[in-house]
């Protein structure tokens, strides 16, 4: 652990969990969506819902959706900036089951490509976050390491192909999760790595047969 985790981070107040963490959740949703966000529906649960306005949790999440980091002073004026950039958004309260008290459910829409993404993420303390659900599937995504989110056809050997490609570029896998909704359907894997993959790695994966989508998520 670095001493800058004690004397830092520089951030927009007032709360590392309710403001900095909230901004990171928004930014993570944006990175996962990787498309223009026409409309965002943000649902706040628990303590996030109870003290959203006072902690700027609502503004921080919208700011994160606009791509702002936790120390960006534009977080404060994110509602106005979202209007300017043509990102529609709505905020509401929700009661989710068995989740951390600081949790948000975010739906993102893009009309042109008819795209939708839904995530559930929690701010788990000190500004750290955890995405616990993507499009209804349980995941565990923290953004503390360079991460790849890959969707692929659920075929035998597919995970092996992915890991060999990474291995051939000398990228070490720290943690990996695989899941799918239905046998033979679309599989999904989340790979946390010790190193940042360059564009060639990502191209290689994208060009691989049976891989549908490759999303690179930098450390946040």
């Amino acid at each position: 652990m670095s001493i800058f985790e004690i004397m830092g981070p520089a951030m927009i107040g007032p709360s590392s969990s309710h403001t900095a963490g909230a901004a990171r959740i928004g930014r993570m949703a944006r990175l996962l969506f990787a498309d223009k966000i026409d409309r965002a529906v943000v649902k706040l649960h628990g303590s996030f819902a109870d003290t959203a306005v006072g902690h700027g949790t609502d503004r921080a999440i919208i700011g994160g959706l606009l791509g702002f980091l936790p120390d960006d002073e534009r977080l404060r004026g994110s509602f106005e900036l979202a209007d300017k950039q043509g990102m529609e958004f709505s905020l509401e309260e929700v009661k989710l089951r068995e989740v951390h008290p600081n949790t948000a459910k975010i739906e993102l829409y893009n009309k042109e490509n008819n795209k939708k993404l839904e995530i559930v993420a929690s701010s788990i303390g000190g500004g750290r976050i955890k995405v616990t659900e993507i499009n209804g599937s349980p995941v565990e995504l923290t953004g503390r390491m360079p991460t790849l989110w890959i969707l692929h056809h659920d075929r035998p050997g597919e995970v092996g192909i992915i890991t060999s490609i990474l291995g051939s570029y000398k990228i070490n896998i720290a943690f990996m999760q695989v899941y799918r909704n239905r046998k033979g359907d679309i599989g999904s894997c989340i790979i946390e790595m010790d190193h940042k993959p360059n564009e060639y790695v990502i191209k290689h994966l994208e060009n691989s047969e049976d891989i549908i989508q490759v999303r690179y998520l930098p450390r946040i």
Partner: protein
Amino acid sequence: MEYATIEELVSLAEAAETSISEIVLQVEVEEEEITEAEIKKSMLANLKVMKDAVAYGRQNNIQTGGGLVGDEALKLGQYLTVAAEAEKDNIYNKIITFALATAEVNAGMGKIVAGPTAGASGIVPAVILAIGEENNLNDQSMSEALFTAAGLGYVVSKKATLAGAAGGCQAECGVGAAMAAGAAVELRGGTPRMAAAAFAMALKNMLGLVCDPVAGLVEVPCVKRNAFAAAHAYTASTMALAGIRSVIPADEVIMAMTEIGDQMPTCLKETSRGGLAVTPTALKIKEELRD
């Protein structure tokens, strides 16, 4: 080189005949594999954020999320312009003004350095910047003091907690005061052992402090508590410089803090279900804010 206790940190500094800040810097270089120059640059950037927050908070009436605080530093500054000469120059007044300014900026979605946490972010900068300003110290010296504060806080984070939800406010403002006290000793020319004594004394006196924020916001009692804790840190540093020692060593005080935090009921650990948060006035404020 590594340290897991305050005693180890002091011993390393004594053995190398150097300061705590230098040891903290060197360990960071080894651990994170980043150059000394880069680390120093990052800390100077933190110092800049701290200075800006103080400057803004002193001069502005800040709009905060709950609207329960926002003009404290401004009021204090105005009062001090008309106060008696001796009071104007009082370092304590400077310290509490700076602490209020930073804590208000934090409450108003301004930029601060979370150290040890956002809620307790006013204490360390107040003490270091006020001593720096009083003594015309350069950024380099003040930045070094931030390494000392960080190293002391680092030990606490390894052994205990820095979260109000886990340890109450003693773990946030208490630790912030202890970190600031140690850093103040170094800035004022004291030895590493004196810094450890100041750390211990400051933390001892804030043991048992609960976290009971009104309406769950980082406003009441947090903002003013930062000012009290900062003045408290300076007091501890003066006692340590005079050669006053802490009977209970710093590392044992940290242990006591952990134990007290474990024994503290959940309603007093950042849940806003006890203490000040459930007073009639607080409940009324909470209702009003929800509407």
